[in-house]
């Protein structure tokens, strides 16, 4: 038996979570370093996954497959395609930064200061590792039921992270803040639970259909279902396919989130600490868009095409709506949350444009949005912690007293507005061009988003960083070494992937090609093939 690399990649953070939780009370620092160590080990493993992955090889690689619940055909099946392996790496890259940025976030809670019996720090770091483990296995799973379990289960640690560790920088009293925090956490849980329950019904429906048609041997295995359908053994009726598709899509649209199911995100991101908000939006939410690409399109190609017009409209509305609301926000973190809603609109638009540029762009967008949001929001977190407020109006002139902080914030902001030269530009342009080539109107409206993005980012920068130094800002310290260790590598990544995204696109492209052939779509051909001559010349060389 081959070495179960994927299992180990997911198991290491899970073991890390248990180990961190078991660190004796009061030993906060030990718990932090232990957790960071495990997250770095996961990063190494994720890098090994990528190194062992052969782009253009078998569709699912590094596979593992074991029977689990035989009665229901549930299997423990893992395998990654180019999209999954990239997203595993993204999660593994971001978590250490999340930990470093949140190094002190669990050291003071609601006026309690650490004493000998202090345990929240252990809890905080253990929960982050637990989320990472569940996210990783969701990316790796090729069994629908296995995926579903972790897709749902990750809500639990996430709920505690949101509800238990606020940033205590809201404008209200501490009690009121605690109330808002628990409201946000419950809202997060409820929305996603409802989505999950509807998906559960669809998962069961899928099982029933497969059991019925495959002679009693129902299955949740994605490769098996695809194979059965290709060989004609399995045929979903149009109605069944559409209903089951809707069940799946609803859950993913809540998690992503797609307009108008987005309202939990600003609350959750606003109330949680910046690192937790990054974990949520840059890592956990990606499971939603990833699952659209993997499950909706592959399992239900016809239904996906049937729903495309509505989904495109919702995505475009989300892009513009999210951006407009970001412009109107007074709270830094809520502003970034609405910006993310706009960006999720781009990702979903790219997926359902069903062109290779759209889908490769959308996948790359997931990666780049993860990095750019981390850069912007983690630095915003440093800013908020210093001032003890997240209201934009409480800031002004930071650039004068803390130029490094202002500079890194600016780069994060420029990435968010997709400035060419930084990574998000490439993915956003691919999504736009991929959409435009099939749906020109949607493409043009979505392009308006780039003007609005400039508006909300630059207004945020202007109000917080420029102008005369405001009261409460005078003594603000510039970035510390730990904070620089967070910001600098993220910025370097943004620059690197802005100028040389090829290593990532090379991994993604073959997987997108497979997905597009699942839905029987090919890229629209240009009217005049001017590049044909050039390409022919190149091959001749």
């Amino acid at each position, binding site marked *: 038996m081959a070495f179960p690399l994927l299992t180990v990649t997911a198991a290491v953070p899970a073991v890390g979570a248990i180990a961190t939780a078991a660190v004796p009370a009061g030993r906060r620092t030990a718990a932090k370093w232990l957790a960071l160590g495990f997250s770095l080990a996961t990063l190494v493993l994720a890098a090994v996954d990528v190194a062992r992955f052969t782009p253009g090889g078998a569709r699912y690689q590094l596979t593992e497959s074991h029977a689990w619940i035989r009665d229901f055909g549930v299997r423990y099946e893992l395998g990654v395609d180019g999209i999954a392996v990239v997203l595993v790496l993204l999660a593994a890259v971001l978590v250490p930064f999340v930990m470093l940025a949140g190094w002190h976030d669990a050291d003071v809670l609601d006026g309690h200061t650490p004493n000998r019996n202090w345990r929240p720090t252990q809890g905080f770091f253990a929960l982050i590792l637990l989320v990472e483990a569940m996210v990783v296995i969701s990316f790796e799973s090729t069994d629908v039921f296995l995926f579903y379990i972790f897709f749902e289960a990750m809500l639990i640690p996430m709920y505690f992270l949101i509800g238990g560790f606020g940033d205590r920088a809201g404008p209200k009293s501490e009690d009121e803040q605690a*109330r808002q925090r628990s409201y946000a956490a419950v809202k997060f849980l409820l929305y996603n639970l409802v989505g999950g329950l509807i998906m559960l019904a669809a998962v069961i429906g899928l099982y029933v259909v497969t059991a019925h048609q495959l002679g009693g041997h129902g299955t949740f295995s994605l490769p098996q279902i695809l194979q059965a359908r290709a060989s004609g053994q399995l045929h979903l009726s149009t109605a069944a396919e559409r209903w089951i598709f809707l069940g799946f899509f609803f859950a993913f649209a809540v998690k992503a989130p797609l307009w108008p199911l987005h309202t939990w995100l600003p609350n959750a991101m606003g109330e949680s600490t910046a690192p937790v908000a990054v974990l949520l939006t840059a890592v956990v939410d990606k499971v939603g868009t990833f699952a659209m690409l993997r499950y909706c399109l592959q399992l239900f190609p016809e239904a996906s095409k049937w729903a495309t017009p509505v989904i495109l409209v919702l995505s475009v509305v989300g892009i513009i709506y999210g951006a407009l609301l970001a412009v109107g926000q007074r709270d830094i973190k809520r502003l970034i949350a609405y910006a993310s809603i706009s960006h999720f609109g781009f990702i979903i638009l790219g997926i359902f444009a069903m062109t290779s540029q759209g889908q490769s762009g959308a996948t790359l967008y997931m990666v780049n949005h993860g990095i750019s949001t981390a850069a912007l929001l983690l630095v915003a977190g440093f800013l908020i912690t210093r001032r003890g407020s997240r209201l934009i109006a409480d800031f002004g002139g930071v650039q004068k007293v803390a130029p490094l902080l202002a500079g890194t914030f600016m780069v994060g902001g420029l990435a968010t507005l997709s400035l060419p030269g930084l990574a998000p530009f490439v993915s956003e*342009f691919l999504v736009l061009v991929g959409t435009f080539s099939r749906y020109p109107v949607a493409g043009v409206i979505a392009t308006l988003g780039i003007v609005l993005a400039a508006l909300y980012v630059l207004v945020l920068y202007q109000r917080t960083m*420029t102008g005369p130094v405001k009261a409460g800002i005078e003594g603000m310290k510039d970035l510390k070494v730990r904070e620089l260790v967070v910001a600098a590598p993220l910025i370097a990544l943004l620059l690197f992937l802005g100028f040389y995204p090829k290593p990532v696109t090379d991994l993604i492209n073959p997987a997108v090609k497979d997905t597009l052939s699942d839905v029987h779509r090919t890229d629209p051909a240009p009217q005049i093939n001017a590049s044909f001559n050039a390409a022919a010349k190149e091959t001749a060389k």
Partner: protein
Amino acid sequence: MDHLIGALIGAPLLGAGILLVGGRRLDRVGHWIGCLLAAVSFGIGAALFADMLGKPTDQRTLTSHLYSWVPVGGFRADVAFQLDQLSMTFVLLITGVGTLIHIYSIGYMAHDENRRRFFGYLNLFLAAMLLLVLADNYLLLYVGWEGVGLASYLLIGFWQHKPSAATAAKKAFIVNRVGDMGLSIAIMVLFTTYGTFSFGPVFAHATGASQAKLTVIGLLLLLGACGKSAQVPLQSWLGDAMEGPTPVSALIHAATMVTAGVYLVTRSGAIFNAAPTAQLAVCVVGAVTLMFGAIVGCAKDDIKKALAGSTMSQIGYMMLAAGLGPIGYVFAIMHLVTHGFFKAGLFLGAGSVMHGMNDEVDMRKYGGLRRYMPITYVTFGLGYLAIIGFPGLSGYWSKDKIIEAAFAKGGTEGWILGGVALLGAGITAYYMTRVMVLTFFGEERWEPAPDPDKTPGVEPGIEVHPGELPHPHESPRSMTIPMVILAFGSVFAGGLFSINSAFLKWLEPVTGHSEGHSPVSTWEVTAATLVVLVVGGALAWAQYGRRPVPVTAPRGSLVTRAARRDLLQDDFNHIVLVRGGEHLTRSLVYLDHSLVDGAVNGTAASVGGLSARLRQVQNGYVRSYAVSMLGGTAVLVAATLLMRAV
């Protein structure tokens, strides 16, 4: 030689990297690093130029393919460069004027504690601008295009603690983004039409597309050009951009970046030539902006803003010429180069005046400065003669050709465009004479310097002595030498270019050229231009030279007042876009909370209440964790049971 193209961009990019990442320890040498790398880039450019001159005309294009940038399906964007005569012209202008302005900035920014950062941004600008003119495809051009926008944003807002500077920077970026949207959609249309957006294949197959497609592409490119080149209707940012340090106004907002739109139209000549409707739109935009900028330039008392109006107007001339097609491309670029010399020189002169005048920008508080700043006076004066098109000087050669070409367009259009261009020449003479007279002649209307703490509009780069009358003095050598060199360019460049039609022959292989049939002869155009020039200049002299100038501006006619406010275009923007937008976002924020969220609010609120009650059970989180954990497990168990039931 082709590997040197990368180095051309690489040198200033390296400088930007070193200066911005290097931090405070480079403060003492930062400006030298910046100047050195700008000069290196110019040196490489000159070497490439010499090499190019040594080759036969049809083999002058150099290409350099660095690497494959974004390959996805049929979408292939490469980092690849193309250096032909058109790009070479820009390279020499950008690096040449760029280096001079780097040197000037050593003196100008001497008192600024962030001088290193300033040079870092300047280097970044050079790199982005070179990328813009050297890219061999539209997507890479777009990187340079937004890159110069970023540099412009950073430099306009260089004195970020001034709210006006921060606002102006933001405005410039956002207005430019509207134009950039046009350019990015143009790239998308190019891709769906031709399957590529590389210059070579697109231009080779340009005429294969339908007329409608070509018109759409042309208009979208024009929208992009309007943003970057401050053409109506996207011109509103340029006047505010004068908040940036004066060397920035000279380099970016006069000589190079703002001419990028003219480059874009000229570069895309193959497309525009096949889309007459788009071409006409380019001409109209050029003609309207030409008048708009000139009228605004007449009314401004702020020397930099008057010059900014003039820049807008002169770029209007270039646009007009570029819209004329092969008759005009060469003269558009020639005017662009000569304008690069004299406008950069004028701005540097204005900076020198401000340097000596406690950073005063109001021309009504100047007067009689020719006695105190002789070098500035002479160089500025030569720039003045060049821009109004005084016979023999640079502007004369390029502008007259544009006026002639406009008439040659033929028909009513030709008469209108030619007439506007001719009238514009008269207004140019008027507002430039006004600037010249108010600044260097007449009485000394100086006033004590304001307190910089109370008036945030002051350029902090300059040492100001509050409460004292200015002691005008000539600027240091690092500032005057660049001014002198630019003055030489202002005087001789146009004439040199016109010997034997040298410039035309140089660019023709790239842009093509056709002689039009002008209804008016060359000497008639020259004579008419001279007449309007003299009339315009005389009017200004009569108004400002013969009579004492009031220090506070008179109320003025309705037109004057409108022109001072940029012909109310800004007020329109403010009321419709800014106010309207604020109302829109505010109502949306409200709706999102009450309507979209409200649907589930009831449920969530009741559960929120439940959770609050749970929290009250003593010792906060630990127990509520347990309860919620239990809840989660219950859901999973229920799910499994449900499974069994099916």
